[in-house]
């Protein structure tokens, strides 16, 4: 106990992950979300509409259905909008931080020398806006990975380069020892 309370003083002076200023994803990524969501909603709506016309049973008022569909869509957009606002990432000297989550505000921190590999993913919609998703993998399984969507391709490449380089650097250092 003695030893630990000694450490607690140090604890106060350690760099605080919770105070790091986070960079929000590029605002243009909102357009990507809107386009993707719209495509999905249109497909679902179209499917439901065909089903509605094909089934011969007694039909409820189509206006109600349309209202329900619109309400659901609006809700979906609101949720995505709010959750988009919550996202942020930061690259520190020795780790990378990503915060997300609408209801549970989740912060994931990966120390750079625990990264297994880094991938850059450009979806079709994202690419037309010059954006990319940075995926960072660890040995900690599914839940220990980070996917940061909506970073400008150039910036994402720089971050990726920085992460990978530091990985190499660390490996070289340990190899020399």
């Amino acid at each position: 106990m003695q030893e630990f309370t000694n450490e607690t003083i140090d604890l106060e002076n350690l760099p605080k992950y919770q105070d790091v200023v986070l960079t929000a994803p590029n605002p243009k990524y909102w357009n990507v979300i809107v386009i993707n969501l719209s495509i999905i909603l249109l497909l679902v709506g179209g499917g439901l509409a065909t089903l509605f016309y094909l089934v011969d049973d007694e039909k409820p008022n189509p206006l109600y259905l349309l209202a329900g569909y619109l309400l659901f869509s609006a809700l979906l957009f609101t949720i995505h909008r709010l959750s988009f606002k919550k996202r942020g990432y930061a690259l520190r000297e020795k780790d990378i931080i990503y915060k997300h989550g609408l209801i549970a505000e989740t912060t994931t921190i990966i120390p750079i020398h625990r990264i297994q590999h880094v991938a850059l993913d450009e979806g079709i919609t994202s690419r037309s806006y010059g954006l990319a998703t940075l995926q960072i993998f660890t040995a900690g399984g599914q839940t220990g990975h980070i996917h940061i969507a909506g970073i400008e391709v150039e910036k994402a490449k720089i971050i990726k380069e920085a992460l990978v380089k530091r990985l190499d650097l660390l490996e070289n250092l340990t190899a020399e020892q």
Partner: protein
Amino acid sequence: MENDFSKPQRQSAAGIIIMAGYSIQQVVRALIIPFIVFAVKAERAHLLYFFAGAGVLVLLTLIYSYFNYLKFTFFLDDKKQEFIINKGVFNKTLLTIPLEKIQQVNINQSLLQKIIGVYSLQIDTAGGADKEVSIKAINEASAYILKEHLLNGKKAEGTPSLDEELPKLNTEIPFLSISPATLLKVGLTSNYGSSVALLIGFAYALFHNTKEILRAFDTDNGQVEAAIEKGFTIASIGFLVIAVIFILLIINIIRTFVKYYDFKISKHKHSLLISTGLLTKKNTLLSPNKVQITTYSQNYFQRKFNMLNLSLKQADSGNPKDPKDLEKSNLSIPGCSPAEKDEILKMILGNIPNHAKTFAPNFRFINLPIIFSAILPVGIYIGLWLNIPEVKPFYPLAIAYFVISIIMIYFSYKRHRLMVNQEFIIKKSGIWDVSFEHIFPHKIQAITTFQYPWHKNVDVGHVNLHTAAGVIHFKYGSYTEIKNLVNYWLYQVESSDEDWM
């Protein structure tokens, strides 16, 4: 066989028989039911063709195994620190395993191998790659030397020759061995879960296969179902429950004996040599620094017997749904005494953790479980009670369920603790089996913290520590304390250059 592994070499010649044995076993396993059906239904005259066909199949398997044996070579590249395997008759495969990626080397002996007098050597690698590498036939001395080379890499370069190595192998004194009496206690007190699963699996297989055979004879008219139904009406439920518990305990004891008979741990240079098994002997050489999570657990009965279960988790291949993989990366030591537990902890962790600061969860921990596991089911029952008269007599069950679930939730809350000191993080948890999971901060791969908005004012939050062998959760702690701890752990991980494996 030579013991210079730097040149490509084949397996022990007995490997032909072993490989043929395995192939035939596979073929038989796949074709047994159609075979039986065919043998029963076919006419006499056709049976001759049938046996001729089977003979040809066996011959082909033997020839294939011979070529397989010829094409299978392996060697150790000392310069590049790689183990290289060439194999395949039709599809050639070149497997290169960097020595640093090897996390465990197992030497096993199946019944067939025991008769012929060879061993199989199996290499487990870390991370993603689910390529399992095994050499099916190798003699004992070579197996152990190769194992040592594989696990120690460069350090093994100057290892003494065979003559000096062997006496050492034989004179090893195990520092832990488990007696049959202890195994009996272990069988009586633990691992009920997997035995239940086994029993259900067995019952299903029995049901299914009986039906299959009856169908082959064109006589399936639902007798099996009828017999079961009849059985249920005759035997009273109480008798059935006792019988099931009895069978369960018997299965549990048998399983424990088969798996852990003659369980020994000895120190072998820098690693632990664990050998166990009744029918097939399993030898595992494990280097302590590859263990990710060290757990010991104890339930009420085990506490009375003064013994514990210990399990050592290594990095899994990232596929948690594969039970085989889970078992492989999870070594368990059943029934050790507290002194033996301390001994093993000392070997794996360096010293026995003490003087830790304990963090307890907020009382809000119990809210959700009480609502979803206690109030909601009982509420549904009350709803039914009001509307369906048939369920009314069952109210004592509902009351018992409510009380038991509340008690269980309370215990899970009381036992959910996180202990932290400079060297270790210990997570205590459990309702019946109380377990203590130990990890080193430098084994952390990633940290996740999260908080629900309605907990912001009361400063309650959660933290997940991701390791290569699973996640450690601490829920409903003080969020300020959690944040401090996370900063401290990050500092520990990022300032040390200790490797996680």
